[in-house]
């Protein structure tokens, strides 16, 4: 967005609570790689130029990538400037940080969807002896006790963490609710490549049947391992991860798991089949069949006849619980009435109900790829057009020059 605003000569500042690429530096585990291939992280005016376009960036590489972009576009970033309040003022908005107060005509909320780890209320019933971490706090298996680990949540995060911890020699039990299964590679090409070319990632928010459901979907069970292995439940089972249903309750020190495991796996298998069907149809229509290996489907997810419904957390078998149960945004500082009954910002493709205010970085904001780094560019382009036009109209109404002002001296 900064790059798009600069291109339009719109005076702006980027307020960052920590350092550039803060979340990547402080809230990710050590071995994490992006699950999108390097070629796919395209930002306005900035394509991948390295020698491994099909590889997956490590955290250090991701941080460097973002820092380099910020420098390249000379983004006017104020670091260590956490916003403590954002509210409407007489002719625009007043944004306060600890160091300064900013007055502006437009605001873009870009703090993303992952500020706070979501931990279910039943966590309070976990016996005291068991160590608990959120995915945001997890760093590496070496920092865990040597006993069994229960990973709760089987999306991208949960499956990757389960995979890594099981390979470290600790017995992992994975609690599985609804999830999205995909292969890493299909017919010789990366799944992200397929979703990109077949237009799946370009699907617009106003073209999907149930945007609320789609925006609430969990992340794909996908990982950026150099060996390109799948991290679906079959892959995890094959290295010894034990699957149980969704964690539904904890009573008397006993964890209760849903009996719906078989169906959530069936739902995921069917959904994957539909995606591959879409890909096959696109490949056929576009004359790719001759050059590629033929269409095929994957083994259904294997579920044991009677998965355990209860695990006694006091038995000592489980020493650590890792909550890979999602995130939500932090809007404690946002004093503008934008929220729905669940505390999320209501928006129409990133345009919110306060004039001159926009939101970015939310799942399926404008397109399916809005969730990815690759989607930020198009979202920024679209919203900056709207923002620029808003500013032009505002300038005509108010003869005063509208400029970003910083008041109160910075300490």
């Amino acid at each position, binding site marked *: 967005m900064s790059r798009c605003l600069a291109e339009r000569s719109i005076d702006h500042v980027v307020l960052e609570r920590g350092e550039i690429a803060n979340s990547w530096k402080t809230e990710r585990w050590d071995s994490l790689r992006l699950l999108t291939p390097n070629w796919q992280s395209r930002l306005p005016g900035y394509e991948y130029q390295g020698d491994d376009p099909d590889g997956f960036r490590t955290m250090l590489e991701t941080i460097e990538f973002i820092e380099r972009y910020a420098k390249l576009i000379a983004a006017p970033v104020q670091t260590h400037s956490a916003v403590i309040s954002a509210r409407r003022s007489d002719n625009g908005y007043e944004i306060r940080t600890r160091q300064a107060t900013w007055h502006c005509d437009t605001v873009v909320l870009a703090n993303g969807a992952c500020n706070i780890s979501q931990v279910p209320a039943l966590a309070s019933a976990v016996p005291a002896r068991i160590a608990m971490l959120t995915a945001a706090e997890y760093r590496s298996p070496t920092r865990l006790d040597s006993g069994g680990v229960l990973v709760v949540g089987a999306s991208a995060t949960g499956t990757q963490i389960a995979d890594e911890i099981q390979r470290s020699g600790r017995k992992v039990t994975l609690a599985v609710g609804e999830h999205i299964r995909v292969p890493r590679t299909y017919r010789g090409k990366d799944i992200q490549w397929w979703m990109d070319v077949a237009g799946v990632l370009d699907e617009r928010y106003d073209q999907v049947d149930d945007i609320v459901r789609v925006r609430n979907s969990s992340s794909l069970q996908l990982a950026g391992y150099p060996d390109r292995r799948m991290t679906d439940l079959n892959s995890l089972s094959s290295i010894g991860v034990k699957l149980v249903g969704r964690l539904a309750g904890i*009573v008397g020190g006993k964890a209760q798991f849903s009996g719906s495991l078989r*169906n959530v796996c069936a739902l995921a298998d069917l959904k994957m089949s*539909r995606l591959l069907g879409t890909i096959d149809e696109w490949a056929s229509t576009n004359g790719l069949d001759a050059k590629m290996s033929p269409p095929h489907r994957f083994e259904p997810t294997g579920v044991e006849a009677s998965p355990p419904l209860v695990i006694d957390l006091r038995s000592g078998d489980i020493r650590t619980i890792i909550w890979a149960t999602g995130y939500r945004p932090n809007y404690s500082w946002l004093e503008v009435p934008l929220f729905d009954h669940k505390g999320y910002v209501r928006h129409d493709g990133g345009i919110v109900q306060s004039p001159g205010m926009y939101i970015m970085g939310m799942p399926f904001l404008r397109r399916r790829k809005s969730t990815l780094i690759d989607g930020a560019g198009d979202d920024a382009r679209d919203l900056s057009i709207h923002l620029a036009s808003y500013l032009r109209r505002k300038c005509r109404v108010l003869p005063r020059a509208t400029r970003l002002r910083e008041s109160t001296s910075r300490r």
Partner: protein
Amino acid sequence: MDMSQKTVDNGVNVEALLGAREALAKAPQAAQFKWRATCKWMNGTHSRSTVEGFYGLGDEQKHKTQFTFDADHPEIFASQDKGATPVEFVLVGLASCLTAGIAAVAQLRQIKLRSVSATLQGSMDVRGILGADTDVRNGFDGIEVIYNIDADASPDDIKALVAQSQKRSAVYDILTNPTNVRVEVQ
């Protein structure tokens, strides 16, 4: 939805359901329902339950007629067999909930159903309910449901109907997830 193009009719008023879904999403109070049943002991293990009134959409409601259910134990349980067993009622509950869901989802997806039938089986080690072994649970060890569906759709699409029905089924949820049950004596 274009009414004039509606060719598939499984008898489910999906427009009404979709309308209700939209309206109730905005009015959660109206979505609070209370389903009820009363039960009277007859003799031995025979009891008679009735269902008539329920609460929903902000008001007391009534079924068109009162429904009556006799429940009992079979003769091999040294009983009179005046009705199906309570656990068989649970299987009926699950079957009817899933089947209704299949019809609704099929209609929404414009899939014509020609026939749908299910057989259900709940396995149980009766030493649990007899108190003969405290390691044995009272309830089912597991429930199996087998659907036979003849419809205008691919096998995967039919499987998807059944999967979606489970995803949205009340009884499936009640059975697969913990539910608080509080029993008082007045």
